């Protein structure tokens, strides 16, 4: 086995695994802030796919996509965390199951 070459698919599967873990986190975590972190994990997983594909195609565009995803993630984080702060002020909890003023 050649120790200097790793198949691209390994990276992609790692990415898929991370993505799935992110989705699972989104489903099972009960604190808003960790739910949000799970989303960040998903985005990171996607980024890994992008970079792998960019490497495979020798296309810079894939990397730039990742760059933009990062910027957007930063913007989203700013807004998301601001929302989380405002919800904490209003409800004094971050538990997903207690954010239920509007249930039937």
């Amino acid at each position: 086995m050649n120790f200097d070459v790793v198949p691209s698919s390994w990276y992609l599967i790692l990415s898929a695994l991370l993505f799935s873990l992110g989705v699972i986190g989104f489903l099972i975590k009960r604190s808003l802030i960790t739910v949000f972190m799970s989303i960040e994990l998903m985005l990171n997983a996607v980024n890994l796919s992008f970079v792998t594909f960019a490497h495979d195609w020798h296309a810079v565009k894939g990397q730039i996509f990742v760059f933009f995803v990062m910027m957007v993630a930063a913007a989203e984080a700013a807004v998301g965390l601001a929302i989380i702060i405002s919800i904490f002020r209003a409800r004094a909890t971050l538990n997903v199951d207690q954010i239920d003023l509007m249930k039937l």
Partner: protein
Amino acid sequence: MHLVLFLIFAAFCLAGAINLLLQSHPINSALSLIVVMSSLAVLYLLLGAEFLAAAQIIVYAGAVMVLFTFVVMLLNVGEEEKTHGSRVAKVIGFPAVAVILGVVATIVLETQKHLAGVSLSDGVTTTQDLSRVLFHELLLPFELTSVLILIAILGAVALARKEGHS
């Protein structure tokens, strides 16, 4: 060498991600996520994306996650309460995740024959190459990001500010 590095950091990634799920305190989850992100940065280096690796550290680990920990500290968020959550989400969600993972993995493995391997020596993208495309062909999206960030700043201020102050 490459294989070893890949395995190590992939393991870090996965361990971090799993730890993110297992930890009940948000700050630990955040730190796990930082581990994931930093390991990803190394993987990017392995894939020849050195600018992205640095950006990953600076933007994600250094800015986004700082914000997260900052908020955790500011709100003094405690341990996660163990509430059962939505059963429907789990009943549908987990099989769906398994299916997605299975399908993607199968497809990826099947596609592997069309993909090249990754080795350290090939295809390092220099920052110049990156900027050339970024400021030329993708100028419009780049400029658009400024609008996005403007909105984010505006929104963060608008949302986090307490009512009654101007």
